């Protein structure tokens, strides 16, 4: 009862299972190092090119040692008895792949060929994915606190940014695409955040009070949750499309609204659609959070003379908060992904690069949009998990 969760020894079965995952990832990494194309050389940005596994790289002075280092990291991770060793092996492997990809790209690119591109192959992604999982698995076993996890996530993203800023990846196709879209990349990035934040904030402002109302009024609960569930089932592309007609009609009927930026395409319909998607997780988790407050606690608070407002502020809200934060996490990660689709109706965001790249069959342009979305979602999940963990961990 008084036991600290962090002090609990890892059960035998869990440890074995954890090592199993590390081993599986290590085998995947080894196979990817040996046989999967690490980089691909393309005659130009559209045509798919020739793939090279690491041992087959023309620059054998780089390819073979890199393959050896990665293989060594995988073996160490698979055999590590201590989670810290596994974490180090995972981090070293990921970093080696990251640095090696940049160096190998420079070596692979024919001198003076202006149109040729080197893009990342499936081998690279498999290796990064495998070492990433090895690292994450080790961190779970190390049972770091919420703050440690946040620090680590930002450090990992920071390391990637340092590699990019140092120009080590400049000969990779994805960075060529970045160089060609430098200004609009950051603009669309800012727009992406506006889409996510601009839909989340009103969803919280409306969703949490609505959730509390549903908690108090059983009759409202069924109806509200049913309507929101139906909204949630509308496919995202259809939802963005559905927003266009009524908003266009609205803008046509009231020119003042149109002048204020409310139109059938662009930011407004995207914000409305994302807002609607956000409501169900917020409302449902708010209801669940308040429902989980023990009735005896509320009864005692009433019986001791706490008024309704004070009861809400100092008893019910703090106890419901961790569950509500979990809802916010769902919404945030969901909206970071969904906002990409908003580019279809001219709302901008990182999705712009994804759809433009698909149109041009330029996969590295697709990646230029997709990778930042994945990183944002990852960071949001880590930060909010930590907030929820902290709220829960505060002895409750």
């Amino acid at each position, binding site marked *: 009862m008084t036991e600290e969760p962090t002090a609990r020894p890892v059960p035998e079965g869990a440890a074995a299972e954890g090592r199993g995952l590390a081993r599986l990832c290590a085998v995947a990494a080894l196979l990817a190092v040996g046989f999967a194309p690490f980089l691909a050389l393309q005659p130009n940005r559209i045509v798919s090119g020739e793939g090279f596994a690491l041992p087959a790289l023309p620059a054998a002075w780089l390819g073979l040692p890199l393959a050896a280092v990665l293989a060594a990291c995988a073996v160490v991770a698979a055999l590590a008895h201590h989670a810290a060793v596994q974490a180090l092996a995972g981090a070293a492997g990921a970093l080696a792949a990251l640095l090696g990809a940049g160096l190998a790209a420079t070596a692979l690119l024919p001198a003076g060929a202006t149109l040729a591109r080197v893009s990342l192959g499936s081998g690279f992604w498999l290796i990064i994915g495998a070492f990433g999982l090895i690292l994450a698995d080790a961190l779970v076993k190390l049972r770091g606190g919420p703050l440690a996890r946040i620090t680590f996530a930002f450090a990992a993203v920071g390391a990637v940014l340092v590699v990019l800023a140092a120009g080590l990846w400049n000969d990779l196709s994805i960075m060529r695409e970045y160089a060609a879209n430098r200004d609009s990349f950051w603009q669309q990035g800012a727009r992406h955040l506006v889409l996510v934040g601009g839909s989340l904030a009103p969803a919280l402002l409306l969703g949490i009070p609505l959730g509390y109302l549903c908690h108090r009024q059983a009759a409202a609960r069924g109806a509200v949750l049913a309507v929101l569930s139906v909204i949630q089932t509308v496919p995202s592309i259809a939802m963005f499309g559905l927003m266009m007609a009524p908003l266009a009609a609205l803008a046509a009927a009231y020119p003042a609204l149109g002048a204020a930026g409310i139109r059938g395409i662009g930011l407004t319909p995207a914000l409305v659609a994302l807002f609607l998607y956000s409501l169900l997780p917020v409302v449902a988790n708010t209801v669940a959070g308040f429902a989980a407050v023990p009735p005896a606690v509320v009864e005692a608070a009433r019986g001791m*003379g706490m008024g309704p407002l004070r009861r809400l502020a100092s008893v019910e809200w703090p106890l419901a908060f961790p569950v509500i934060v979990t809802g916010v996490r769902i919404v945030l990660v969901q909206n970071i992904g969904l906002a990409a689709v908003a580019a279809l109706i001219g709302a901008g965001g990182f999705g712009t690069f994804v759809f433009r790249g698909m149109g041009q069959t330029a996969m590295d342009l697709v990646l230029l949009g997709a990778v930042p979305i994945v990183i944002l979602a990852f960071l949001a999940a880590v930060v909010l998990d930590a907030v929820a963990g902290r709220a829960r961990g505060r002895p409750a």
Partner: protein
Amino acid sequence: MITVEALTKTFGPVRAVDGISFELAEGEALALIGPSGCGKSTTLRMINRLIEPSAGRVLIDGVDTTSIPPATLRLRMGYAIQGIGLFPHRTVAQNIATVPRLLGWPRARIAARIEELLELFGLPPAVFARKYPHELSGGQQQRVGVARAMAGKPAVLLMDEPFGALDPITRTRLQDEFLAIRRRMGTTVLIVTHDMDEAFKLADRLAVMEKGRIVQLDTPEALLRHPASAFVESLVGSEDRGLKLLSLAGVTALMQPATGWTAEADGTFRKAGADASLAPLSASASLREAASRLVFAGVDELPVVDEAGAMVGAIAMERIIAFGGGGR
């Protein structure tokens, strides 16, 4: 100080509480006792207006409680419940501070009160003040629950099965502790329970309830000797009521001067002409304990000693048997 007049609560066609009246004097402990669904909890909750009465009224120091805002009224009445309802996100000290803070006591007075109550309930403040409820055992949680209910120096303490969820040993210990604290502090208590032994132990008077009405309101002894109905008789327990009666009175009530006893060196006593010497009975023992000792030793009489071990009298079996006289 608390007067309940013709209090009634109807839920649809059901009269859960049907015109009950009683008075609770200052410093008195009254138990509302009866089977589940007899309306005892509803009655308690009408007193602090967690439930609004359908008819009748409750006066506190002569003032109708409906003229006092519910939150204000409840600050004057401590409230301890079976589920305890400690705030899981607050420490023991913060839990106990709830009502004093609502009352706006100065910080130092609250701190002193927390310390006083924790000491009183045998929970050293240095160890327990900063703990969270989930770090406490069930008995410790229940102590904190009662301490929290008493923190604002309420005019009356309302308790709804406060020791119900505990194992029998812990429950008995908490009852003993609470009894000692109540006697020391002179707390006025209204307690709801379905446990007759608990009611006999903690309450000065018992209101036996059946189907929303009080069928008998009396002292434990009167309930045992003169149950008003077969229902009350079954509730007080017809098999062992003689023993229950004995547990209500102390040996000093029936003690006679000791004659013919001589003290031995080891603290035992020998009756003139007897072979063996006998261990004496403490003056604080109940008649029930006295009877048990007499039966166990197989004798007619035992010496009674004070705390210092000096003989103050003797208790005889025939007087104990006569004590029960008058029962049917």
